């Protein structure tokens, strides 16, 4: 069974440029998460989807970040414009459901460097 797929794996951009990350969750997982992981820290939730609905986006900086999961399967996270402080690893995860004790399955992440 394929795991969570993310692309690209690495991205280097100049500040003020746009960037987009793509995630394809495990088949059948209706819950999808985007996390940001700064160096030396644990993942911090940016947004959580239940199917195509964003049910928790309280930590998403909405002035520059946007996300979509149009058909309730794959998802895209966008930053426009990027700032130096956005340099981090962006992780996508999926699970069978957010409620209950379901564990999350993580992709390998996209390492973003903003110059």
């Amino acid at each position, binding site marked *: 069974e394929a795991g*969570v797929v*993310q692309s690209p794996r690495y991205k280097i951009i100049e500040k003020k440029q746009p960037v987009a990350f793509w995630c394809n969750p495990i088949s059948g997982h209706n*819950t999808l998460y985007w996390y940001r992981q700064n160096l*030396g*820290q*644990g*993942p*911090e*939730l940016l947004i*959580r989807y*239940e199917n195509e609905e964003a*049910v*928790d986006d309280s930590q998403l900086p909405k002035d520059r970040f946007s996300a979509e999961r149009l058909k309730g399967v794959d998802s895209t996270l966008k930053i426009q414009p990027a700032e130096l402080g956005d340099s981090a690893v962006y*992780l996508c*995860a999926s699970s069978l459901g*957010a*409620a*209950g*004790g379901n*564990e*999350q*399955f*993580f*992709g*390998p*992440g996209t390492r973003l460097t903003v110059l």
Partner: protein
Amino acid sequence: AQSVAQPEDQVNVAEGNPLTVKCTYSVSGNPYLFWYVQYPNRGLQFLLKYITGDNLVKGSYGFEAEFNKSQTSFHLKKPSALVSDSALYFCAVRDPDTNAGKSTFGDGTTLTVKP
């Protein structure tokens, strides 16, 4: 609000010795608790979880963890460490009563097992 603490940034053990990676948590109700491991340039990988029932839970690769409600702890243990266990370990907590789908992660503990 839910929170989790991993008091040790780094744990060093000799191969063959027992290891413990500490985790304490804070939630208003009964917690769901998880351990994940992260290898370099890879996403987090689920190890084990406590939802309910027996306080001692067993997981992948010979790891186990003990839920201690009175001490609000969920320490990760292994009787005999392997060099291949060297990685970054994250504890996570979820409060099913107030934050059904949101997990809070600790900042991680780097485990180094020396031959």
